[in-house]
């Protein structure tokens, strides 16, 4: 073994420092959520669960969590169905026109959030969708479509075109072929897309700030308003719960893969 060079040590140390910069700051919400003070600070004299108690006993926080959850599920459902069918159609067509259609579908990734939210607001006023769950689900579905269509299309890249052709020449109709041959092949991409769609919706804030008023309260909106008005440590408790949930889901995901 050669002695590691200065260059290699430099790059490796740098990488670990950067990773520490990525992870450690987020962990600060954990001790702060356990503070015994009524303002944001590290615990002073003892650890306390009162901010968790506050979250679990406050109807506004719980309602917001529930609303975020079911808006996320509805968004994941609609975006996954629309995006999957779209990508399958584009995969079969694979023409110039269908490539343009795919570009149209990913515009929400590139348009700044505030700009699209202004658009939503003006149009939703005309449609009477302001401050409704339908309005939020519709907006979130559009924002999630790029992720679903990209991941489904990526999954289809490995599918041999001869297989659906064989199904067709054996007499299966187009819908039958899609259902029995293409959808199973795209399943990993569909699942990834659905998870992405849920997370896009669950985390979305700028659109919600523009198109909802008082009736629709989502978790990100509660956190946003909490930060703006009075930063109370309940937000830290919520943040900790979300970080822990993410960790658990990530671990579960990586265990399933191995």
């Amino acid at each position: 073994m050669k002695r590691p060079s200065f260059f290699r040590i430099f790059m490796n140390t740098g990488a670990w420092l950067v990773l520490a910069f990525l992870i450690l700051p987020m962990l600060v919400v954990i001790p702060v959520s356990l503070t015994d003070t009524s303002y944001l600070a590290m615990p002073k004299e003892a650890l306390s669960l009162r901010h968790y108690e506050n979250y679990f006993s406050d109807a506004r926080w719980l309602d917001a969590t529930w609303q975020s959850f079911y808006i996320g599920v509805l968004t994941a459902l609609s975006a996954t169905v629309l995006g999957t069918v779209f990508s399958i159609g584009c995969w079969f067509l694979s023409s110039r026109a269908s490539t343009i259609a795919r570009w149209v579908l990913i515009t929400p990734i590139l348009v700044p959030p505030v700009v699209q939210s202004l658009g939503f607001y003006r149009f939703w006023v005309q449609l009477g969708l302001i401050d409704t769950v339908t309005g939020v689900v519709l907006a979130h579905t559009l924002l999630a479509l790029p992720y679903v269509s990209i991941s489904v299309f990526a999954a289809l890249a490995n599918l041999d075109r001869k297989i659906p052709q064989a199904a067709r020449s054996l007499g299966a109709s187009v819908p039958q072929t899609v259902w029995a041959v293409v959808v199973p092949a795209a399943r990993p991409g569909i699942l990834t897309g659905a998870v992405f769609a849920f997370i896009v919706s669950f985390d979305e804030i700028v659109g919600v700030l523009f198109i909802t008023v008082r009736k629709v309260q989502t978790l990100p909106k509660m956190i946003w308003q909490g930060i703006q008005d009075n930063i109370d440590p309940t937000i830290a408790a919520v943040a900790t719960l979300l970080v822990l949930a993410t960790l658990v889901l990530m671990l579960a995901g990586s265990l399933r893969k191995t």
Partner: protein
Amino acid sequence: MTTTTIDPPAAAAARRGLSDRGWYWLFVAPALIAMVVFYIWPLVQIFGISFTEPEFGLGNYAALVESRPIQTSLVITFRVAAVTTLLCLVLGYMVSYAIYNAQHRMVGVMLALVLLPFWISVLIRSFAWIVLLGRSGVVNDSLIALGLIEKPIAMMHNEFGVVLAMVHVMLPFAVLPMMANMKGINRAYVDAARGLGASEFGAFWHVYLPQTKPGILSAALLVFVLSLGFYITPALLGGGRVLMISEYITYQIQELLRWGVGSMLSVTLLVMTAVVILAAARFVNLRKALLERG
């Protein structure tokens, strides 16, 4: 299988009703129509508003030349986006390089650590920075407790705090395209250069780095475009003092109800974004960077 027995004449009849391509377009239509009607059309309306409110003409656009606050905001936007992009490239490169060239067992851990922040919302991550950097935040409190400083240092509500938190949010977006690029690079060239007597740094600089240019450029494009229109983190950590253009637009609309100016700035931001993307198209494979990213 009995359930999938197909009666050829019936299938043929179904086909006579709609050609194969007809079916495929039928699949494409719902999502495409939804996107055009509920997403593109509202953007077109914003475009229209910028020329018609409060009165018809180019009046709103005159503000781009006349209004000092707007010009300041545009300059801040570009500066913050540029600095963020530069820092993300340098820091992200080190991580991607270590992951693909370290040849040790920690690679899996490093990969997981890069991906983790992706799944945690930007709002939560910005909140964590507020907890850290605030006047009586964790950093200031600790420094005072240690006796290193007497008065809290202003670490947020200024460009420092905004850029710090933005780099944190944008880093994974820089790392992913660079990793995708490095994955496909053959070490043989670097090894050859080393065998011919180049130092490790020399081989990196003259042989490896040029091969990673496509990854660096797509990372730069992605981070810069996302930073230009970023709202959440600058709004929370800037505290109204680092008015990037997205926050300026929101302020015009929500506080002043000046839809004309707000729409005009939205169109400006959209055009700037488009110009950056089209300019980048000469150097970056947009298809790979955007349409086909895994």
